[in-house]
């Protein structure tokens, strides 16, 4: 028994090394042309900035949006942007899952003693998305320093944890959405409406969306927990929609639950694939 457990640990450790090396290999090939990589990062940063401009333009015409002033909205935008950039970097290439299936590359991955999902993410990590996260992070830092926050230990921990939880939630959403491709050959469009839809949805106060969209993209797809609720908790602000206060602190828990759900969905999808061989 003890020996078995140790073998398991050794194997896990070598698995982690393997994923790390896969990420390293992807990084090396992406950084092979530094100038081109810098341009791609700048492109991502510009995309993120265009959303910022949209928000700033809107606030030239309105004073508040869903009960939030401009700096408060920028906190939401910042947390959402950092999270989405990181999620897109880690799992964004799952969009090419249909190609993996069609070209038999998924089969090739399954001939190795590692998980298929981990291999795809590790070997397709897209570092240029850091341009997006860094821009959002800069905005977040500026916004946090200008809004009124009564800093407590809890809020200090939350401000660190929120982007991590947000990233985990968005990664989970991505994995679940892309799992559709195992059943639908052209499932990618559907998956993208959820994944890229979340990018927009999570960056704004919940109150500006219609109630069915709030239910769908905020709770069924737990987008509200990425940035909206943590921001309320940081600001110590009662929810303009009157939702209970404990929800504001629940993002880390939701992140854990999302991972469990995503893992179960992915395993089911892979089992379906191995059952049908489509």
């Amino acid at each position, binding site marked *: 028994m003890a020996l078995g457990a140790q073998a398991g640990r050794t*194997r896990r450790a*070598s698995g982690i*090394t*393997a994923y790390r*090396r*896969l990420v390293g*290999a992807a990084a*090396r*090939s992406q950084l*092979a042309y530094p100038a081109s990589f810098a341009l791609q990062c700048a492109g991502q940063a510009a995309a993120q900035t265009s959303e910022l401009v949209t928000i700033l333009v809107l606030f030239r015409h309105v004073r508040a949006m869903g009960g939030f002033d401009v700096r408060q909205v920028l906190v939401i935008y910042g947390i959402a942007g950092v999270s989405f950039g990181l999620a897109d970097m880690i799992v964004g290439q799952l969009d090419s899952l249909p190609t993996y299936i069609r*070209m*038999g*590359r998924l*089969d*090739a991955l*399954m*001939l*190795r*003693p*590692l*998980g298929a999902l981990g291999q795809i993410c590790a*070997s397709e990590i897209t570092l240029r998305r850091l341009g997006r996260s860094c821009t959002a992070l800069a905005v977040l830092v500026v916004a946090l320093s200008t809004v009124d926050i009564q800093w407590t230990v809890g809020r200090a921990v939350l401000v660190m944890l929120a982007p991590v939880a947000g990233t985990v939630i968005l990664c989970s959403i991505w994995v679940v959405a892309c799992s559709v491709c195992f059943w639908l050959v052209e499932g990618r469009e559907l998956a993208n409406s959820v994944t890229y839809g979340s990018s927009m949805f999570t960056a704004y106060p919940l109150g500006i969306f219609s109630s069915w969209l709030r239910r769908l993209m905020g709770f069924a797809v737990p987008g509200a927990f990425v940035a909206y609720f943590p921001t309320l908790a940081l600001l110590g602000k009662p929810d303009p929609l009157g939702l209970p206060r404990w929800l504001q602190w629940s993002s880390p828990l939701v992140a854990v639950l999302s991972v469990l759900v995503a893992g179960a969905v992915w395993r089911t999808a892979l*089992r379906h694939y*191995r*059952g*049908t*061989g489509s």
Partner: protein
Amino acid sequence: MIIEMDGLVRSFRRRRGVEVRAVDGITLRVDAGEAVGYIGPNGAGKSTTIKMLTGILVPTAGRVRVCGLDPVRRRRELARRIGVVFGQRSQLWWDLPLRDSFELLRVIHGVSPSEFAVRCAEFVELLDMAPFLDTPVRQLSLGQRMRGEVTAALLHAPRLLVLDEPTIGLDLVSKERLRSFLAALNAAGRVTLLLTTHDLPDVERLCRRLVVVDRGRVLIDGPLDKLRRRFGVRRELVVDLEAPAPPLDGLPGVESVTVQADGLRQHLVFSTEVTTAAALIASVVRRVAVRDLAVAEPAIEDVVRRLYGREW
């Protein structure tokens, strides 16, 4: 026992609910050290069998064990014990030098650096890969890449090597280099081979045992030389003539003659047991003026077709 299949079945539901049995009750045992050619026409169920052996596909019915493991339940464990080469799917990293692909696979399979260094040096030497070890894989020729693929599948010292069309698209020199490498490895007792191919010389060079499948069933399973004795190996001589001629009947060893272009091109099917290509060519040129000629290997499909309906 490396491979055990008992009544293995795999069916697929096609459109409109039609069920197709790609593998229809295959029972097969392969012992350690064997070299088995697993052949059959397209759609015979070869790839489906391989996918079940490697744990990619779940069998519909029947039992399969590879290296004593249930491939589906223990896919990752099995992946450490077997190597697979798909002629048309790469295990290598396109943008990285070949050397780096090997190193990544070393880490993935948890092979110790010292063990890896010895094995890698040996394969680089035997397959003459030193000149292109630092070239990115996308710049390699197909022959060079396939040498890399085979090495990649062997770096973790698997007990079983499964090869799916390993020589497809290779030139003759590359084919022969790969075959002699695999044959030597198998002869040294280091790895069991299971090979699917459409290339009969692959089988003749590498395999002592032949399993012929068709429509998901095993048609024939036995030693290659016994099969050859029983059915003979036929080849085809194609001759282009200077002037149209009547069919070249009555030449020794020729079993059938097909005529094209009013007799300008003739296909002579002959048995290698009765005559040789050289002797036949000599007797043809004595009779007619020949512009060009070629000797065709019998396609594996032809052999299978000829085997069909005969008792083994």
